[in-house]
Structures are given as C-alpha cells and as structure tokens.
C-alpha cells in the first residue's frame, strides 16, 4: 500500500530519524569499543585479606571480618585447582566472599597458584593428606575454634570430600559442596576425549611435566564451542551498558585465567577418576587409605546447577546418595557451572539459600 501525499514526508522523516538514531548508536558503540580495548581490565579479588599461609601452589587467605559480630564457626573454602579463587570475590557488591563476610561469617579460602616445575609431582595425596589438613589446622589455630565449615567448589569439592572421607574421626561441623562431580563417567565428553584407547596421558605428563593451562582451557571451551562467539556478539550489542561490559570483562578475565595442573595430579585424575571411576565406585585409594564417601557423616549441602555443562547433574547426584550423613540435602538451582556461584544469578538464588542453611549450623 502506498502512502498518501500528506503521509509521504512524515514517513521519510521517520525513516531518516531511525537511520540517524542507528548511526548515533553505532558511533557510540565504536567509541565504547575503543574504550573497551584501551581501558585496563576491572580489578577483581579486592576484598581485604591476609595471606596467612603460603607454600608453593597453595595460598591460604583470611578475609577481614565485615560484621560487628560473627558466627562461632569459621568457613574454609577450597577453590577448584584449575581456576583462580577470585571468581568468588569478583567486585564489591558482586562478591560471594563479601556477602559471607557481611552476613557475619569468618571466611578463609584456599586459592591455588600455577604449580612450579618441581610441583609436577604433586598428587591427590599432597592435596588431601597434606595441604587441606595443614590449612584446617591453621584455621583452627588462627580462629581459636575447633569446628569449621568446609566448602568446596567443583574439583575443590572433590578434594574436600576425599579429605573428609580419609579423616572420618575429624569431621568438619558442616560440609558444603558446589557442583562437585563424583560419577566421572557421566561427564560424557571429558570421558570420551580421555578414552584410554586413544589418550596417552603418560606421554602427555611425561613430556610436559605440568599440564599446560592452554590444554585445560581448550578442554573447557570445546564443551561449548559457539558460546565465546555468541558472548562477543552479545557484548557488541551491549557495549553502551557499562555494568554489562564490566561484568563481561570480569567473567572473561576469569575464564581465560585457567591454571596449569600438576602433572601427577592430572595423571591420577584421568586414570583413577575418569578411567576407573574409582571415587564413585568407592575404590579410590589415597596414601593406602580408601576414600569411602560413606565415611562422611557431617551435615552436608550440595548445590548443583540445572544447566551445568561441565558437571552435569548425573555426575554430581551420587554425592548425596553415597555419603553417610544423616543430615544431607541437594539443591538444584537455575544457572550454569559458573553462574551458580558468581554474578547476578548467584546473588539472587544461591547466596540467600546458602545463608539460610548455614547460619543455623554455624553457632
């Protein structure tokens, strides 16, 4: 249908306005794009803390309390070995650690640095019979409280449950795990890629020593190969939104900041956990002791993500099924592997739920 004579100039001016608005948006976007490239990455992990213990790859932080009174029981968080701990302390107002501190918890965190060449020999034995017990001892000494809540994220959760299973007589007051895999065969793509018929893990570890961060990063990226590009398209569209850009940059920085893994630890992960699925079967032996999940009797909360592409629910579910605790609960929340613990989704969903569960158990 053609416009009438009177409507034609109106239509032309409307089209002109739209074109002008789009050009202005594109210019603004380009200016913001230049700012994006030129400006430094946003600061992360800025919540005030003391490093109370450091040994090679291991760092134990104590965050300075932010409440006038705190719960009796301190929290010791064990970060995943493949990533930096600042995902739990992104920025003021978006920091899980800050939330815990403001809610009245006393927070300690085990964060990992890239293992040095001589740390290529670190094994599960070092993490679960030496590092974590030593940190538990130091937290008890520093806080003056015997009880503590042990909290692990992803492989940090795996190390935490193995530690508790190996030390049944010194159970933590509470155990909290976020998206912790137990049945490694259910992590289908990782299991497929590390198929023992094709994957020469011995050659890899013997050649590289520590397993390079690039290999770990590529493994995670390949699970969702289109997501990075789609993320960049979304970033382009939202370049005018400063909050979105800041958040995007923090998450991008974190996901690019993958850590290398100690060679022997990686070899054990592949052979014992992925090939033999020994943690799930109750056959994992560490330092001559069997890590039987039934030995875990502390109250336990396991929070899993509905859309977790790294640790699907089938891989995480057996934790609550197998532990011997009388008080045990699994909560499934909307979100993915990372958005479960950090970002707006976590702020709305996980943090208040966790506080409700943990507060009454921290006195």
């Amino acid at each position, binding site marked *: 249908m053609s416009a009438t004579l009177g409507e034609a100039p109106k239509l032309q001016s409307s089209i002109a306005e739209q074109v002008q608005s789009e050009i202005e948006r594109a210019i603004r976007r380009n200016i913001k794009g230049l700012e994006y490239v030129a400006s430094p990455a946003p600061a992360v992990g800025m919540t005030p803390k003391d490093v109370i213990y450091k040994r090679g790859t291991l760092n134990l932080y104590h965050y300075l*309390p932010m409440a006038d009174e705190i719960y009796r029981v301190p929290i010791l968080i064990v970060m995943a070995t493949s990533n930096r701990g600042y995902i739990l302390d992104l920025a003021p107002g978006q920091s899980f650690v800050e939330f815990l501190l403001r809610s009245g918890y006393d927070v300690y965190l085990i964060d990992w640095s890239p293992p040095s060449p*001589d740390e290529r020999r670190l094994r599960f034995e070092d993490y679960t019979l030496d590092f974590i017990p030593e940190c538990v001892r130091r937290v008890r000494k520093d806080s003056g409280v015997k009880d503590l809540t042990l909290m692990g994220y992803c492989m940090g959760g795996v190390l935490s449950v193995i530690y508790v299973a190996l030390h049944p007589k010194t159970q933590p007051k509470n155990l909290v795990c976020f998206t912790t895999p137990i049945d490694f065969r259910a992590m289908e793509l990782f299991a497929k890629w590390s*198929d023992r018929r094709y994957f020469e893990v011995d*050659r890899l570890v013997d050649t590289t*020593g520590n397993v390079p961060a690039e290999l770990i990063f590529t493994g995670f990226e390949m*699970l969702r190969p*289109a997501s990075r*590009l*789609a993320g960049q398209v979304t970033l382009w569209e939202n370049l005018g939104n400063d909050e979105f850009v800041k958040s995007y940059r923090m998450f991008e920085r974190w996901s690019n900041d993958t850590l290398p893994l100690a060679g022997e630890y990686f070899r054990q992960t592949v052979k014992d956990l992925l090939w033999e699925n020994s943690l799930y079967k109750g056959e994992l032996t560490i330092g001559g002791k069997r890590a039987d999940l039934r030995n875990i009797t502390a109250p336990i909360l396991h929070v899993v993500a509905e859309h977790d592409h790294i640790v699907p629910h089938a891989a995480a579910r057996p934790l609550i099924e197998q532990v011997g605790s009388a008080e045990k609960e699994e909560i499934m929340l909307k979100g993915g592997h990372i958005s479960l613990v950090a970002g707006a989704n976590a702020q709305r969903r996980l943090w208040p739920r966790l506080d409700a569960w943990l507060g009454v158990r921290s006195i």
Partner: protein
Amino acid sequence: MAEGPSKDPSAAWRELVSQWEKNINALANQNMASDEFSSGSNQAMNLALRIQQGMASGMATYLATLNLPSRADITALGERLQAMEAYLSRIAVALEEPARGKSRTRGAPKRSRPPRTKQPPARLP
C-alpha cells in the same frame, strides 16, 4: 490479553543469536562425542607430543655436546634453589617467632576480631 510476537528487533536478534549458539553447540557436542573425533584429536596431540619429545631429546644431546645445560638441567637447578629458599624461610620463621611472641606480650597491637556471638536471624528475640 495474550501477547503477540515481540516487535523489538533487538529481542529478535538476541533470540536468533541464542538459537544459533544452542544449535552449533549441540551439533558440535554430537560430533565430538564420536570415536572418530576422540581418536583423531588424540592422534594429533600424540604426534605433537612425539615431535616435542624428539626435539627435546635432540636438543639435550646437542647442548651436551656443546657442554651447555639443557632445560631439564636448569629446571633441576631451579628446584634445588627453591627447596633451599623454602628451607631458609622456615629457619627465618623459626628464628622470628620467639621474638614476635615477646613483642606481643609487650603489648604490640594485635588485629582485633569481632566476637563469635552471632545468632542466625530466626533465633533472634
């Protein structure tokens, strides 16, 4: 009242990108879950590792001929240095601790901590 399809072109674009991402990821995951992919990608990696091993071994022989240290020799030296540094820092801590203890008893400021008396909100009167 039932809502009609959105007329916002940005929303349509976002939906398109989201669908594209889902489809590509699903397709890629399907292909990467195959034996062929696992076998092919691992063959490529094993070849790269073999080349790396061969280069390292050849280079070590070459450097030994020139009477120069290899990367492994330097790494071993670094390990020994690190072990010595760790040992020294343990000695330093052991030496400093009694002094630190004395200064604390002399009334040096210790970071004060809030009392561990907090009760969960539901328990408050």
